[in-house]
């Protein structure tokens, strides 16, 4: 069913690579084996093996392009196998936009090593010095032309038996012919015709269907389970392991009905602060730990003697809200365990499953199959443990799928943050001092707290109060003589935490770039002019100017002159450099605010994005667009609601997303820097969105929105205040 390295290398001829467990070492392998990354087949095709998976970002094509470029192999001869612990090297999971800068860099160096090796082999074969040869189109030949030898003849089906050479020369960007091209993804034709196999589509003989029965509230335990309540449902039965409950059936619909109809008496769960009071609760809770993360000059002293401006911003708990609920197939046998999962971290899941079943990781093979987009760590990790536990309990392969409610209620959540900023300007209207802090539950520590092993009593929930919240970018990117940034961590979190796309930064940039606008407005300065007086980096200025020009930005202070009529329009912008070290992103937008309802409609967004060298401009654009629209959804609509007893965001009505009629006109300008390293683009463009919306709404209405989400009801209330 799944290829082994053996069958892969056999394609077309018989060559065996005894790869086995070599590729499964720790992430920080000193010098990984080239063969763990790259195999050249007898037919001249090449397979790239990686633990960085493609969760719908198109990264497989990026890896194919990088390999094609470095190795001199046509890109259509390259296949990428992502995330199969049986056959890929462990060089890290997908996350934190690391796919290109880390995953891609490893693959690039492996491919460069392969090219060097192929040139050396060609030199022997052609009796010519290696530096007189080129490798293009899969053929090694003399620089000036002439008879060559193909890579399949040189190494097809054989091992390189080399370590990846960190010094193997890489191709110069100026000579690139494949990197930088908008080559189309090969999965989209299958996805557009219903032929792509997702993990949800995986079937194995004898497979049973399972559903988990989650508690009615966090911390609730089953007190009584009435198995007779599902007796009428064919072949349905209950699996109970400690407090972990599931149902299995031969037929999927029978499993669904059994899950719905099983009568369980649950104990009272843990009380939780209702979402409506959470911001206030966070603000008044004494932090467990405080840490000054940035200090320059003396912000408290400078603020003490100045006229200050102060504001507090709130970012709520949010769900990954994957469109398809998490699913996993597991086959637990004494001889070994196979798990098919859409996790972004196959080796992490391998460890989780091994711990849960109390067996050696080497006995577990986790195979990645695409799921619905995951944006960090949705329920996939938990679902893999669920499936493995249930398969072991029933002694058969199991396909486990969460319900819509399971996914929205039980995925680990992007944490809530409260952000406070105090600032003061000098007499020339420049920023004199800035003091900002973020308070929130720390994390994310979700990986130690998969739901079912804890419920089954096989693991204890890992504590979540470690370290300070992720608060990069809480210091502004502008010149400020007196600056202080503090992270404050709360001891408890009401909900499990995780890294949801642009973790921390999505909240900190919202606060920083909103506050910049508040400062600009306080001295009636144009928001862009105000920012530019504290910026010298030409790449920063370039993205700001570009986004502004695309929107047709006319300098003037906000808010706009008072508007009559049913709709008010305004424009706003935001800028940031991701983690102060990666992508430069500037965004400008136009909004309409409906007076009667408070509804915000973003009509137009322009974005300029500079992430260094661009590998696939179309894939990059797709990511940037997705970042922006997903964050627009998070900004306008999304908050995990709870009523004090339980989470009440259970479906697409109670956890609404942005809809098509509200999709803005979106223009993205990509700035390429061929000589600079590539940064990942899976998150950066998320960070400025919320502030740009808030700034545009302020421009339109004079009302400052500081609490995400900006629901119509909230805006209406403010408009009528």
């Amino acid at each position, binding site marked *: 069913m799944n290829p082994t390295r053996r069958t892969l290398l056999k394609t077309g001829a018989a060559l065996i690579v005894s790869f086995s467990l070599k590729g499964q070492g720790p992430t920080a392998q000193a010098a990984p084996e080239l063969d763990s990354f790259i195999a050249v087949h007898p037919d001249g095709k090449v397979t790239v093996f990686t633990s960085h998976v493609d969760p719908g970002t198109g990264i497989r094509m990026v890896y194919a392009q990088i390999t094609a470029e470095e190795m001199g192999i046509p890109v259509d001869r390259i296949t990428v196998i992502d995330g199969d612990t049986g056959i890929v090297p462990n060089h890290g999971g997908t996350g934190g936009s690391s796919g290109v800068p880390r995953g891609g860099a490893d693959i690039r160096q492996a491919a460069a090593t392969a090219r060097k090796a192929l040139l050396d082999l060609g030199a022997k074969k052609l009796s010519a010095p290696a530096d007189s040869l080129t490798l293009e189109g899969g053929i090694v030949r003399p620089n000036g032309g002439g008879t060559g030898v193909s890579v399949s003849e040189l190494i097809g089906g054989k091992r390189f038996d080399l370590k990846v050479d960190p010094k193997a020369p890489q191709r110069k960007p100026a000579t690139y012919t494949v990197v930088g091209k908008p080559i189309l993804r090969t999965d989209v034709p299958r996805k557009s015709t219903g032929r792509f196999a997702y993990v949800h589509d995986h079937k194995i003989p004898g497979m049973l269907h399972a559903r988990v029965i989650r508690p009615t509230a966090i911390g609730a335990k089953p007190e009584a389970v009435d198995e007779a309540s599902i007796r009428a449902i064919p072949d349905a039965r209950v699996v109970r392991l400690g407090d972990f409950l599931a149902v299995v059936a031969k037929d999927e619909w029978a499993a669904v009905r059994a899950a719905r109809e099983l009568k369980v008496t649950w104990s009272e769960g843990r009380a939780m602060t209702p979402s409506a009071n959470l911001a206030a609760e966070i603000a008044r809770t004494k932090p467990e730990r405080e840490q000054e993360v940035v200090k320059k000059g003396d912000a408290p002293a400078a603020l003490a003697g100045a006229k200050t401006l102060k504001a507090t911003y709130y970012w709520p708990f949010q769900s990954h809200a994957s469109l398809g609920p998490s699913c996993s197939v597991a086959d637990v046998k004494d001889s070994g365990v196979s798990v098919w999962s859409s996790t972004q971290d196959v080796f992490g899941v391998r460890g989780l499953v091994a711990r849960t079943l109390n067996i050696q990781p080497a006995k577990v093979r986790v195979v990645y199959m695409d799921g619905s987009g995951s944006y960090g760590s949705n329920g996939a990790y938990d679902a893999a443990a669920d499936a493995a536990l249930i398969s072991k309990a029933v002694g058969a392969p199991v396909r486990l799928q969460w319900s*819509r409610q399971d996914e929205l209620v039980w995925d680990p959540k992007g944490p809530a943050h409260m952000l406070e900023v105090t600032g003061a300007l000098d007499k020339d209207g420049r920023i004199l001092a800035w003091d900002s802090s973020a308070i929130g539950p720390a994390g994310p520590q979700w990986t130690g707290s998969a739901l079912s092993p804890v419920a089954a009593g096989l693991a204890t929930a890992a504590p979540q109060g470690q370290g300070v919240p992720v608060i990069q970018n809480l210091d502004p990117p502008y010149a400020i003589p007196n600056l202080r940034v503090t992270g404050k961590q709360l001891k408890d979190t009401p909900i499990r935490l995780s890294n949801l796309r642009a973790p921390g930064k999505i909240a900190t940039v919202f606060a920083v770039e909103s506050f910049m606008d508040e400062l600009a407005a306080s001295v009636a300065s144009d928001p862009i002019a105000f920012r530019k007086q504290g910026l010298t980096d030409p790449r920063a200025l370039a993205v700001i100017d570009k986004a502004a020009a695309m929107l047709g930005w006319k300098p003037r202070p906000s808010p706009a002159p008072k508007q009559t009529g049913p709709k008010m329009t305004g424009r706003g912008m935001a800028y940031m450099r991701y983690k102060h070290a990666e992508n430069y992103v500037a965004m400008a937008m136009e909004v309409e605010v409906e007076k009667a309802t408070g509804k915000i409609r973003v009509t137009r967004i322009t974005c300029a994005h500079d992430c260094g060298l661009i590998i696939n401009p179309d894939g990059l654009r797709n990511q940037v667009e997705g970042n922006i629209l997903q964050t627009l959804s998070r900004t306008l609509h999304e908050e995990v609601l709870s009523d004090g007893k339980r989470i009440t965001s259970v479906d697409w009505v109670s956890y609404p997303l942005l809809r098509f009629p509200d999709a803005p006109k*979106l223009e993205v300008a990509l700035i390429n820097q061929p000589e600079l390293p590539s940064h990942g683009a899976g998150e950066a463009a998320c960070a400025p969105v919320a502030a740009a919306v808030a700034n545009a709404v302020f421009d339109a209405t004079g009302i400052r929105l500081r609490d995400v989400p900006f629901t119509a009801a909230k805006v209406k209330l403010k408009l009528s205040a």
Partner: protein
Amino acid sequence: MPTYKFKVNDRDVSVESWDPDQPLLYLLRNTLDLHGPKFGCGLGQCGACAVLVDGKVARSCVTPIRTVAGKSVTTIEAFGTPENPDKVQAAFIAEQAAQCGYCTNGMVMATEALLKTTPHPTLEQAKTALSGHLCRCGTHTRILAAVVRAGKA
């Protein structure tokens, strides 16, 4: 077990279901091995499971099998293949209108239905036609461009 006869992609089929209320989606995916329609919510709220029943878009996750007997069901697989996509699918490919692609089935099916009544949709018509469909990846711009492009093909 009761059987239900209907047409799927122009083929006569007869499927067994122990429950007359079993949604069509499960029978398509599990009995008939048509994986194009996806489970997203099971509540009729997202559109991932869309198929056509007698030419009209239906949410197969909330369509009981008993209501399908004697009717004609069309799934995304009927329109084309990766090698030979129809014009709607080709437009989605040309626009690269997918990230994870989990919502794509619903978007393609809604477009197939839209083009029957509105062969050359404007952007606004495309937005309205997809208003009941969700995309979590934020691929809206490209999906809308694909709908408009399909109408020009």
